[in-house]
């Protein structure tokens, strides 16, 4: 197992290097002098030259790349053009906000998606099966920004049951420690704030959960249908075990592997896809951070934030791969 983890890590190195190269090339691909574009047409020649040197754009591209790589190894993600703060300091609160939202969304998606899939397979061709699968089909075709706006309209604007956006009540801000507000409020014993933080999570979380929920439900259903036809399920039923245990204990264990792959992929997608939900619900996450950076042509932020999100995406996929072995002992690593 350990050697497998090591091997997978080694395999990741070329991909990670490639990712840094691609992200590095983003700024290089801008037509014209990036320094001029960053400073605008009104900038003086001197200031353009100064920025060109500061960004190291006067060096050949391979030297620039190795410098960039060297800085990355030192944990230096560059400096925001807009706030002048190091990106590595600035990014954590945004990352934490996105992480909290994505985690909340994937938990909802797993609970509802997996159960809907199981029940659909259990009662195949029943009205529940048909309804769930129609919803799942609509779910995968749903533009989440539209769903988010609809949710906001119904549950926040017309009926002010939930907040329209943000992470916390403006009048009673959370005292951030980890920047995961659920954790922070619990640590500080502020359960009134915990409730507010939870209320803020519901609408964006549900909007973000819709697509993965639909995909997970479809995957679970088809995977369960396949397993339910196996001999050992018939045996379990023949010996008189309750159907509930047959489904949830015996069948699910074997049906969950492909579902797990999908869950891992979707979690990665959520980190990237959160940008739309974050825009609608004014959620101060990393997607929002990138979006604002684009507006200001803040290239160091765009580069680094995209790289960090992609890094998480790769890591999540690795973790999912490793989880297989825990769930299914038949899978051998070599």
């Amino acid at each position, binding site marked *: 197992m350990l050697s497998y983890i090591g091997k997978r890590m080694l395999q990741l190195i070329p*991909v990670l290097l490639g990712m840094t190269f691609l992200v590095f090339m983003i700024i290089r691909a801008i037509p014209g002098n990036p320094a001029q574009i960053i400073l605008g047409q009104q900038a003086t020649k001197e200031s353009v030259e100064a920025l060109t040197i500061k960004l190291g754009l006067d060096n050949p591209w391979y030297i620039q790349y190795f410098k960039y790589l060297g800085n990355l190894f030192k944990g230096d993600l560059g400096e925001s053009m807009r706030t002048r703060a190091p990106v590595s300091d600035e990014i954590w609160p945004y990352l934490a906000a996105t992480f909290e939202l994505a985690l909340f969304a994937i938990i909802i998606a797993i609970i509802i998606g997996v159960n809907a899939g199981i029940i659909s397979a259990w009662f195949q061709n029943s009205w529940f099966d048909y309804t769930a699968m129609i919803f799942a089909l*609509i779910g995968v075709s749903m533009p989440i*920004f539209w769903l988010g706006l609809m949710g*906001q309209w119904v549950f926040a604007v017309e009926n002010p049951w939930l907040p329209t956006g943000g992470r916390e009540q403006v009048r009673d801000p959370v005292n951030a420690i980890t920047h995961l507000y659920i954790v922070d409020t619990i640590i500080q014993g502020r359960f009134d704030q915990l409730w507010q933080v939870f209320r803020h999570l519901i609408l964006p979380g549900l909007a973000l959960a819709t697509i993965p929920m639909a995909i997970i439900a479809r995957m679970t259903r088809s995977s369960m249908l396949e397993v339910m036809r196996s001999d050992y399920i018939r045996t379990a039923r023949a010996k008189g075990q309750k159907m509930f245990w047959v489904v949830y204990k015996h069948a699910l264990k074997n049906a969950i592997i492909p579902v797990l792959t999908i869950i891992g992929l979707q979690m990665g997608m959520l980190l990237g896809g959160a940008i739309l939900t974050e825009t609608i619900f004014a959620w101060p996450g990393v997607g929002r951070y*990138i979006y604002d950076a684009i507006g200001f042509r803040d290239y160091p932020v765009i580069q680094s934030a995209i790289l960090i*999100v992609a890094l998480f995406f790769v890591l999540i996929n690795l973790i999912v791969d490793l989880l297989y072995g825990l769930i299914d002992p038949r899978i051998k690593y070599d």
Partner: protein
Amino acid sequence: MSEFVPKADGIAVMKVEKTVGPWREAWNGFKKSKVAVVGMCIVLFFILLAIFGPLIAQEGINDQVLKDRLLPPSSEYWLGTDDLGRDILSRIIYGARISLWVGFFSVIGSVVVGSALGIIAGYYGRWVDTIISRIFDIMLAFPSILLAIAIVSVLGPNLRNALIAIAVINVPNFGRLIRSKVLSIKEDEYITAAKGIGMKDARILVSHILPNSMAPVIVQGTLAIATAILEAAALGFLGLGAQAPMPEWGKMLADSKDFLHSAPWTMIFPGLAIMLTVLGFNLMGDGLRDALDPKMKS
């Protein structure tokens, strides 16, 4: 089907029944799925809307009639008007042109580039394959919408660049698909035979390998159009795709954000149009998969 039927005088005569070609067979399979046919009808509806839309829609979709701003659906404006007094129905009809155009052409772009790279990687193998496959891996390591945003942020926000970005991010999907198909086909005996009679690589690729790898590409392409339409709308929504006053559905949704309370119809109908179109392509893609490529059936 053909079979030999012995005749009374002892001479066997081949009885030829009407043969069914592979396309006809696929169509017969496709027809059987009601859901797929519904999907096809939705897609056809939007295609017809895009082609003949100008005959139905009011003229001057960008004309601002400020006295008629934010009117609810009525007999004059079936789907109401937006904040600049423009007819939403007409704008949605014109929007179908934009969305379908982006959907089709971005996918055609990804298919052409992806197929070329996939075929080269799969057929030549070795270091060519390693390089191309690693590039695909790296591109797939990024969440697709983020990569699209990064590309548009470099190229500049407009519809053409959004189309290019969407085409680029989908290249590795088609590339990998074709590569794996080529890998399995190139071991087939008829390819060995073609090589044996001295056929050139290029001709083998174009006239044998390409046509035989097309079924999964058609399936994946249909599903990719759905995703491309969603991605284009997402970029438009973020202000990184179509720019005002273009009647792009995602852009229309973005403009509706401030009028959720006073004019929810400005938000409901463009979103519904996106969802229906995407649903149509998804249903059709699922049906095509079952008909053309039974092995991919889940």
